[in-house]
């Protein structure tokens, strides 16, 4: 699941475990290598241990077991203020009694930089986030988006090699959030800092990151690029958590190397790509992206062709979102492109749908995968 443990990893979690109460593990045996200059996102549902990992990295929580390395150095016993890690907090944590300028100057002053240099760097940081001229304001006199920028500028002004961001855009509205995603991404590319970013918004993770670590229940479920995560989910949790997904349950009836045949509850046989399913006879979850399903396929073009009843149609302009009943699943979603070539479907009629074996991934059993809708 993790990148190969080369010694050049910039941040490295080695078998890290964390328990707050001595009874339950909030983080279970975390192994994670983060490369220099990478934008890595920790994505996962609430309570999955993302913040805890970030806090251990920042030094505000100690690992119960295991070691964290920064730039090859073990940092378990290094105090937070000696780690030189910039951090953007969820509610920004701007100091309300200081002006924007003083907030930005704070990390430089505690590093005992000369006055001229402080001025210069603060001015540069304000320029970077396009807030020149706002230096004299108090945080309370700024809008949410402006506060967010100040927080980013403050975490970067002392030029740390690593910046942590814990849901930094959670408090912003959608439009502003998208704009800030772009700006943070831009700053990351320009400065080349390593960013560890926490969010539970998957679209945010997909648009911003080099790699994404999907967390659930204190375990990294999959560590991959955004594309890999969407195209090649390795287990039912990831398939369900990232993007839209059709689930079909069944049991493996045959297995030949990479492919397998799965028998559904209804007794139909589906050909699929064996990813993380068990051996013959074991239950499995089939995962299929809605846009990979073809309506009325050419005869012989798909190994999997089934009859489906149209339950509901939603017109969305560029495509029609159709809900079908198929193989005992009446939540089967198909996205039909509005290309004008396909005859419009009608509610209640029976149509044929088909898909290839490679697009249908046989993953682990549903009992181990919590449902996310």
């Amino acid at each position, binding site marked *: 699941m993790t990148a190969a443990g080369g010694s050049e990893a910039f941040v490295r979690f080695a078998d890290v475990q964390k328990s707050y109460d001595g009874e339950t593990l909030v983080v279970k045996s975390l192994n994670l290598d983060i490369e220099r200059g990478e934008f890595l996102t920790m994505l996962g549902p609430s309570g999955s241990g993302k913040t805890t990992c970030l806090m251990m990295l920042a*030094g505000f929580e100690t690992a119960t077991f295991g070691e964290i390395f920064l730039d090859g150095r073990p940092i378990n016993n290094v*105090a*937070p*203020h000696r780690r030189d890690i910039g951090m953007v907090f969820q509610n920004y*944590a*701007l*100091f309300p009694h200081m002006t924007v300028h003083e907030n930005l100057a*704070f990390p430089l002053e505690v590093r005992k930089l000369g006055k001229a240099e402080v001025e210069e760097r603060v001015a540069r940081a304000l320029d970077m986030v396009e807030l020149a001229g706002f230096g004299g304001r108090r945080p309370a006199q700024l809008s949410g988006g402006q506060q967010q920028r100040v927080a980013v500028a403050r975490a970067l002004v002392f030029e740390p090699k690593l910046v942590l961001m814990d849901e930094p855009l959670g408090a912003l509205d959608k439009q502003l959030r998208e704009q800030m995603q772009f700006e943070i991404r831009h700053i990351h590319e320009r400065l080349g800092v390593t960013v560890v970013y926490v969010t539970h918004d998957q679209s945010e993770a997909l648009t911003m990151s080099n790699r994404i670590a999907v967390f659930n229940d204190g375990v990294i479920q999959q560590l991959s690029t955004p594309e890999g995560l969407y195209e090649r989910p390795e287990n039912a949790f990831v398939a369900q958590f990232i993007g839209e997904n059709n689930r079909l349950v069944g049991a493996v009836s045959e297995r030949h190397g990479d492919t397998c045949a799965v028998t559904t509850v209804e007794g139909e046989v589906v050909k699929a790509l064996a990813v993380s399913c068990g051996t013959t006879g074991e239950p499995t979850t089939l995962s299929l992206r809605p846009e990979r399903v073809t309506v009325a396929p050419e005869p012989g073009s798909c190994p999997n062709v089934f009859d489906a009843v149209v339950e509901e149609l939603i017109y969305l302009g560029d495509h029609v979102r159709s809900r079908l009943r198929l193989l005992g699943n009446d939540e089967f979603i198909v996205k039909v492109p509005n290309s004008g070539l396909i005859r419009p479907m009608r509610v209640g009629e029976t149509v044929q749908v088909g898909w290839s074996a490679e697009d249908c991934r046989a993953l682990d059993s549903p009992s181990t995968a919590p449902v996310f809708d």
Partner: protein
Amino acid sequence: MSAVSPDTPAMLTTADGAPLKVSFDRALRRSRLKALALVLPLFAFLLITFLVPIGDMLLRSVENQLVGNVLHRTVKALDHWDQGSGELPDEEAFAALVADFQEGRENRTIGRVGVRLNYESGGMSSLFRKTGRRAKRITEAPFREAMIKLDKRWGNLDVWRLIKRESDAYTASYYLSAVDMRFIADGSIARQDENRQIYVRLFGRTLWLSLVITVLCLLLGYPISYLMATLPVRTSNLLMIMVLLPFWTSLLVRTTCWIALLQQQGVINDLLVWVGIIGEDNRLAMIHNRTGTIIAMTHILLPFMVLPLYSVMKTIPPSYLRAARSLGANPFTAFVRVYMPNTVAGVGAGSILVFIIAIGYYITPALVGGTSGTLISNFIAHHMQVSLNWGLAAALGALLLAAVLALYVLYDKIVGIDNMKLG
């Protein structure tokens, strides 16, 4: 609405045809009346128990009707007497004085005038008692000789000047006494004799001790409040109960406990002797003096510091300190530069509360203060209960009130009263 002619603006009406504005005013008036009815009881209570007594106190501190009322004939006769002439008043004034004395003796008011004038000049009380007893025997002129024969002090110009001066309906003499000054015989103002100067020193001591107590409360209360604000709820509730425990115990019980602990044969001295830190014959004097007052009052006033501090600290997100640490500040710098400035409102509120309560505190210094630990309020009580010099008590109280108000204004200037968080 068709009946409305085009040149008069259309008037909006409600469903029942009444003009909108009238109904609106009526509805508004009703809700105002309701609000008034709700605050009225409290307002009346405050008026009767707070504003009226304070007004009465302020009035008493300057009021001086007694001399003018009882010696009304004399005062009238003294109208055209030039007190700078070096001459005694004329026969007419003496006649009036005799008449006033006879009347005052009859309705038993003359003694009070003596007591009142005695505040200004010693011996006046005895002069008035003596004269009061004998004045009825003087029935015919010449009154001046008869009075001087009765007591030769009636031939003293200063006595007459005093009567003339104190005949005004209002006097500043109580306030002068309260700041260790007095009118001397010729009517000018001078310092009180060295051995009678007590109040200025007492005010100074009161302010100083209150300051010491406030600072001690802050030093003790700040860490506790910080702990309570940062610990998990269960532990912090326990601490809170311990802080509030003094509130639930009788003041008298607590003070008595301090006596038992701190007295020369008390627990702490016994312990120190037993351990061998001090010898048997130089046990520490920790009660019935200034130390006792400071210790006992700090204990009693601590909750007034902790509660505002706690309520302010509770609102400071822990992420501030974390942010400061992550920005490179060591724990000390982070605390001083980021945490403490955010607690200013609580420090201000707690300090001003403790200070104001301390400068007016009465019972504890009375019980454990001895002579060196008594405060101005103990003297106010003395003048109200023992010497019955209510005017002076009122003047001292008014000065105390002025000090509190000055402090309030000062606080408003520096911190801003809107920032005060009392809980």
